């Protein structure tokens, strides 16, 4: 912890609507959903049918190609509907809660006294396993792999992101059990990325069996991918695993209580929210009870996740599997006369191309307007300024666009996922869809590798 890794590249978007730090309760949601689309590269296969009764921890679907990986219900009740999209793709498996919350008992256990296989089995059976993801590619981890290390970023720098120091307060014991589980899964170390100011140092210092690394800097310093790059980068053929801080708690509770306890603190934030804050709810819960009568007038966009990488959901939609944040921002469907030619005292920009640089502390009510049209790449050097990694973003993207597999590998496709280049996409004057291009590239690469 002596060495602080200072990241100088990046950008903190000055958006309005950062959540206030107060814990709020919300009436329990009546419907919950697990969404196969939350998992990259997953082909789901259903284990239940409509109206089947389920308990908290009962499998809803599994991975067709790795059937041991189960995705389970967060609540007890009955399967309300299986929502399908184009070509019968499964979008959501909705469960109507019965309010009794019957759990399947997976048995308590002390991870330090258990074998690796035993631990993995418990994680798989309970549906907690999918909380562990692998890099490269951001897939659900493969139980037959042994990662060279496991990484957890204990702070999030994304716009309006939750403050994990606040969420984790008082749950040190459970967190430690979660960490103990993870230490059993890797040959290497469990690395914890912290921010000297944003993390609760006394909480961190009391933790055992982990390697602590301090990072400072703007977003994306909190991205686990960026931290991996600076601690122990992923090369071709190597695999590391990552887990979100709140999901470490879920893992911990599985061993502490013997059940899949899907409770989660979710931040409701955004300029259009009346009462922002930290809501005690559950993963997969409908956001409706949180946002009902709690948002301002107008056409709004609801996002599960942060505004850079999250998924658009309906006002009655569900919290994503990995998300601890619901953002609500205005839609930007309006015309702006000569918008590109005005001085722009009120327009946030990473560049100094508008006069908003005169007020470096002002916060902005940012909307979803694209602010321009799609163009070929013209500017250079701007993308690398918001990515604190040794990666030539523009060249990597060009390699992907031209289907050049060799250069994709050489230029670092194993090291980044969508969230890492989200800022590049944000600042891009050519309005390129970089996150989509990257995912297409990853898919092409996997197809090629077979």
């Amino acid at each position, binding site marked *: 912890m002596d060495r602080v890794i200072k990241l100088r590249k990046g950008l903190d978007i000055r958006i309005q609507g950062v959540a206030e730090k107060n814990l709020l309760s919300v009436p329990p949601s009546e419907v919950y959903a697990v969404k196969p689309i939350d998992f990259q590269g997953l082909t789901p296969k259903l284990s239940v049918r409509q109206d089947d009764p389920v308990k908290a921890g009962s499998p809803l679907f599994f991975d067709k190609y790795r059937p041991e990986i189960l995705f389970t219900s967060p609540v007890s009740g009955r399967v309300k509907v299986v929502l399908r999209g184009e070509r019968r793709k499964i979008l959501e498996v909705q469960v109507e809660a019965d309010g009794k919350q019957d759990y399947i008992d997976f048995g308590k256990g002390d991870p330090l006294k258990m074998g690796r296989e035993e631990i993995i089995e418990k994680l798989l059976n309970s549906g907690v396993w999918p909380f562990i993801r692998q890099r490269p590619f951001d897939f659900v981890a493969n139980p037959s792999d042994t990662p060279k290390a496991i990484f957890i970023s204990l702070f999030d720098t994304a716009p309006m992101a939750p403050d994990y120091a606040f969420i984790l307060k008082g749950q040190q014991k459970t967190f430690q059990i979660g960490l103990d589980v993870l230490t059993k899964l890797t040959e290497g170390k469990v690395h914890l990325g912290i921010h000297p100011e944003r993390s609760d140092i006394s909480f961190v210092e009391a933790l055992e069996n982990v390697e602590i690394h301090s990072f400072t800097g703007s977003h994306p310093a909190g991205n686990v991918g960026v931290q991996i790059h600076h601690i122990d980068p992923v090369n071709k053929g190597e695999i590391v695993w990552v887990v979100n801080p709140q999901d470490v708690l879920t893992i911990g509770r599985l061993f502490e209580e013997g059940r899949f306890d899907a409770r989660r603190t979710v931040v409701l934030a955004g300029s259009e929210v009346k009462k922002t804050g930290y809501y005690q709810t559950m993963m997969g819960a409908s956001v409706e009870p949180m946002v009902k009568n709690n948002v301002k007038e107008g056409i709004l966009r609801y996002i599960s996740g942060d505004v850079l990488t999250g998924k658009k959901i309906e006002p009655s939609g569900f919290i994503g599997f990995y998300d601890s944040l619901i953002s609500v921002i205005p839609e930007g469907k309006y015309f702006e006369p000569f918008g590109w030619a005005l001085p722009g005292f009120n327009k946030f920009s990473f560049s100094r191309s508008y006069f908003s640089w005169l007020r470096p502390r002002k916060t902005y009510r*940012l909307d979803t307007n694209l602010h*321009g049209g799609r163009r070929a790449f013209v500017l250079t050097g701007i993308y690398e300024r918001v990515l604190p990694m040794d990666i030539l973003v523009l060249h990597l993207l060009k390699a992907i666009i031209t289907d050049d597999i060799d250069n994709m590998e050489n230029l670092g496709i194993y090291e980044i996922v969508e969230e890492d280049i989200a800022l590049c996409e944000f600042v891009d004057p050519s309005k390129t869809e970089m996150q989509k291009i990257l995912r297409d590239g990853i898919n092409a690469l996997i197809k090629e590798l077979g």
Partner: protein
Amino acid sequence: MKALIKYVNKIKPHFEEGGKFEKFRSTFEAFETFLFVPDKVTTTGSHIRDNIDMKRTMILVVVALVPALLFGMWNIGYQHFLALGQQVPLWPAFWFGFLKMLPIIVVSYVTGLAIEFFFAQVRGHEVNEGFLVTGILIPMIVPVDIPLWMLSLAVAFAVIIGKEVFGGTGMNILNPALTARAFLFFSYPAWMSGDQVWVAGLKHGLHAVDGFSGATPLAEAAAGKIDQLPSAWHMFMGTIPGSIGETSTLAILLGAFILIYTGVASWKTMLSAFAGGLVMGLILNLFAVNAYMQVPAWEHLVMGGFAFGMVFMATDPVTSAQTERGKWIYGFLVGFLAILIRVLNPAYPEGVMLAILLMNVFAPLIDHYVVEAHIKRRLKRAKVSVQ
């Protein structure tokens, strides 16, 4: 304004698929997006986007060119009346230059934009904004008495052969404005060099007063008349004959400041280009065998089109190197070669245009080696971690 938005939205369906004027969709879009930032919202990826777009980027370059443009207009008048032996106040001189300049700018934009619109239409693309900059750059790097048909031809050549055949803005290899100038330079040398073309009227039989030479400092220097060079101060301020926008280093530096401060152009390219020019100048000083080679290295930086080329043309992000390390190398070589060609080549009095075009061609190669070195470093890291 609201009525206009309403009107545009009313006629919009005609231009969409299946509408009466479907063929003119790109043209419609170009005008629509010129009037308003459209109501498009994000669909994939990041839900919010920076306010900057290509129009804003390009318009900032135009803004950065304004000081040099205004000065150039005034200087047209100033030089003209100087040739007549008259001293006129600021405004009449500016007005004279403005009237001379206006048709040149109009012809440049009309020709170029017509071609851009045509290509966008054929390809079904939106109209690119690149020509906003090219269209004003070209008038600033030609002599004032250039015949308009000649200019129009050069613009057409630059846009079609220099840019559109490669796929439009962002895909071209050579800087379009310099392509236009090179076309003029090699096709109509009589109109692009000599003592007659730089001052309005001389080519058309205007009789200059005794002792007035219309030659640019570079022409004087190339002819060996080093003692007739204007003072460095005059060359810095720009009260000398030359291409319309290139003469005032001061006005150009003002533009450079705008470009660097807004982050539109790379300060690395600019700085290394000036460094490259200075280094070549010093080398020439060191081995000086004639008077031209003895011209102090720093004076080269305020002479001719050096400053203009390095600030506005070498930094073109599309045709310059695209890696950060590549920009240092590219910029240095542009400056270095510009002075080398300028001083040692007997055929061309100025080397900036050729140096930039040459390095435009080599920029992808520089990038290639920078990227290879980057890949090698990454692979080395992989090996270290395996051990």
